């Protein structure tokens, strides 16, 4: 079993159809196939092979426009994303408002593995507070599960994909179980300076957590822990883990990784799933809707072959939507199912984002050395002002973390540009000296905070516009609340204080929240739209992503998240997907599906 054509898939019988091949689809298919379920995965984009398609070691000088981003490759030429970005040709979406502050930007990719191929690999666990936010401050919704329910699955995902980090025991910043995390990379000079000066401001700086192999995975120990009592799964995983190399500390992760040293669905989830013989994948399969059985259950899906335009129908015992939160919402709305609560499309969230940067004289004219490391997030700042917030001192709810970076990165179009605020505008030999002096002396802080779900942020079907396949598209409504704007302003002010404490300077002063906050969707952490809950009247699914109205329809992507902690959602999506897939397996074994 492997890649099959639509015609071949039509003739076969499957236990589960999984729509989507990214973090959620990959994890769902992995867990199901390793335990014997026969899975058909439908991916809207093309087949993609990181081993032969990844630009390893190419420099920006090797790319058109020196690698700078364009509307066709928004994150730069070498970025792994295929046929994607905030616009996909022939597949529009609309906004209900023309006001830029109320528009939503939707990033998609049309490729096997979806957005995991270019993902930043930041892998933070939600903490205990993050599952009960309503109980803590009366805003948003509590999850129907607590941290203790998901902790074992966080451990499993971290062991499978490989996550580096450290256990610090900080408030609402959980430790992983012993032996789970890989060692973090050594900090860069700028990291250590930020850490030293943050300490004076009582701001913590600890090792980052990212899905990058700083050492090879322990193929003797981990498969037994991940698949107890399943000798076949253990053997397959042990063999596959040996094919993954450790990071060689060069080449940015956003390009993907041909040596499989970081996590992407295509290099970590799908290869062992294929090895079970239980996974078939049809690519270029654009799902339109879910079909219904006479008894009200899900029968299967209708999809359109992107290359031929022909329509296909496939059936299975269980249908899983893992198409990315908003694509799953679109399929649900276009199918007219699972929406007796009227909550499908509601409560969509992104992450609050605001950036601030400066220049630090202490980092000028550094002795030359290689700072590539593992690319991103050697250290970071977890949210730290829990007590001040509880005491009502902050003026906004929920928290944020800082992802920061400095260092002597691979030169690109930004290198030695815009120096006039530092050197008054030079040219000639003086300019070349300035370029050397200032290179590597800049630091940037990206605040990433929790958005609270609200009634003004939702998606619906646009009554007029359809995509090139004739499928109705989404129309977005968006509005930040005072909490998000307050966070964004606090991010700016705090980042400026840290740069001040480093003896640094900045060309732009801290801005107000409404000016600093990134547009909705720009951080690409969109979740919600089919939230989980414990009341079928107020939610779309239970904690397993199982739809209240359709027991054999599951959602395993970010659509079910009923809050969006500042922890970046991908690790949580994978942990939920693993838990959900185990539940499906149990129900299928007990013939309850």
């Amino acid at each position: 079993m492997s890649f099959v054509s639509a015609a071949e898939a039509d003739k076969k019988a499957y236990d589960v159809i999984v729509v989507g091949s990214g973090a959620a689809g990959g994890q769902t298919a992995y867990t199901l196939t390793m335990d014997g379920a026969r899975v058909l995965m439908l991916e809207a984009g093309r087949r993609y092979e990181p081993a032969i398609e990844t630009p390893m070691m190419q420099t920006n000088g090797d790319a058109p426009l020196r690698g700078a981003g364009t509307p066709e490759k928004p994150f730069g030429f070498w970025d792994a994303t295929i046929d994607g970005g905030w616009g996909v040709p022939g597949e529009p979406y609309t906004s209900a408002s023309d006001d830029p502050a109320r528009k939503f930007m939707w990033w998609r990719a049309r490729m096997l593995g979806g957005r995991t191929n270019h993902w930043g690999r930041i892998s933070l666990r939600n903490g205990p507070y993050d599952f009960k936010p309503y109980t803590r401050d009366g805003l948003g919704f509590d999850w129907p599960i607590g941290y203790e329910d998901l902790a074992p699955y966080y451990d499993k995902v971290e062991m499978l994909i490989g996550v580096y980090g450290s256990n610090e025991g900080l408030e609402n910043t959980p430790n992983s179980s012993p032996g789970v995390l890989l060692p973090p990379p050594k900090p860069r000079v700028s990291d250590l300076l930020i850490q030293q000066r943050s300490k004076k401001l009582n701001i913590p700086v600890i090792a980052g957590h990212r899905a990058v192999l700083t050492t090879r995975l322990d193929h003797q120990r981990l498969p037994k822990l991940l698949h107890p009592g399943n000798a076949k799964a253990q053997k397959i995983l042990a063999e596959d883990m040996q094919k993954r190399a450790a990071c060689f500390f060069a080449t940015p992760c956003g390009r993907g990784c041909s040596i499989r040293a970081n996590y992407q669905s295509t290099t970590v989830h799908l290869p062992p799933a294929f090895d079970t013989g239980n996974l078939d994948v049809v690519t270029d399969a654009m799902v339109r809707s879910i079909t219904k059985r006479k008894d009200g259950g899900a029968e299967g899906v209708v999809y359109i072959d992107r290359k031929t335009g022909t329509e296909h129908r496939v059936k299975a015992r269980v249908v899983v939507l893992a198409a990315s939160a908003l694509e799953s919402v679109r399929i649900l709305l276009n199918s007219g199912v699972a929406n007796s609560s009227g909550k499908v499309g509601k409560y969509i969230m992104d992450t609050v984002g605001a950036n601030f940067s400066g220049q630090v004289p202490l980092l000028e004219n550094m002795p030359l050395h290689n700072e590539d490391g593992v690319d991103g997030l050697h250290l970071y700042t977890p949210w730290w002002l829990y007590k001040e917030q509880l005491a009502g001192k902050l003026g906004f709810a929920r928290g944020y973390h800082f992802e920061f970076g400095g260092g002597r990165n691979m030169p690109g179009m930004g290198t030695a540009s815009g120096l006039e605020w530092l050197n008054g505008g030079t040219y000639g030999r003086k300019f070349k000296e300035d370029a050397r002096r200032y290179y590597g002396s800049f630091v940037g802080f990206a605040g990433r905070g929790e958005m609270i779900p609200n009634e003004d942020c939702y998606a619906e079907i646009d009554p007029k516009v359809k995509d090139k396949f004739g499928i109705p598209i989404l129309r977005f409504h968006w509005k930040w609340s005072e909490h998000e704007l307050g966070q964004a302003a606090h991010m700016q002010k705090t980042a400026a204080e840290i740069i001040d404490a480093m003896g640094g300077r900045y060309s732009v002063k801290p801005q107000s929240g409404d000016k600093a906050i990134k547009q909705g969707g720009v951080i690409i952490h969109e979740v919600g739209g089919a939230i989980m809950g414990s009341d079928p009247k107020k939610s779309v699914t239970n904690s397993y992503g199982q739809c209240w109205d359709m027991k054999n329809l599951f959602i395993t992507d970010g659509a079910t998240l009923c809050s969006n902690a500042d922890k970046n959602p991908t690790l949580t999506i994978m942990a939920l997907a693993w838990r959900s897939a185990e539940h499906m397996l149990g129900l299928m074994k007990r013939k309850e599906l």
Partner: protein
Amino acid sequence: MSLDRRTTIKWMFAAAATVPSLQAIAYTPEAHARDVAANQSGYGTDPNLTKEWRPGGPWPLTLGKDARLTTIALCDLIIPADDLSPAASSVGVVEFIDEWISAPYPQQRADRAVILPGLLWLEAESQKRFTKAFAALDQAQKEAIANDICSAGKAAPEFATAAKFFDKFRDLTAGGFYTTPVGMKDIGYRGNVPLEKFEGPPIEALRKAGLA
């Protein structure tokens, strides 16, 4: 791109009005730049990431003969040869700038509308002050013009537009140069090398930042 052409010709006449006769300007529109076709496509949303890409590959270059000479001269005024590295034009920066301003994307089209008129202004200013092409000026003459426009913040009002051009041209020159192998080496980038272990910063670097 007809807008560019219109803008270009408007600038030419504005520049011409400041010099004795039109003949004093060496440029013809053809020697300045060819249009970017209105329907020119980019590299697409699924370009081959493993093949070799060179300026002129994804879309045609458009700089004319004379504008190229001005570009060479200005690039090398901004990044001349010194003890550590050669001048910008010797490592392909002119071809890169040509690729940039010939690209069909919004940012690059906006930059083209700054760079092409700017080159014309530079040529006219050179004729006005020294009755020579910019590329033919000696170092002191080139600097006399550059000193008036190298700082957007300090430039006199009559040089404000030219200073914006210089600023953009300098950024393109720097981006083009520091992404080449010699440029990366010059600026002190030592990465993009596969390593068995990542050892972190050397003790001298930590000392310099007051961390050891």
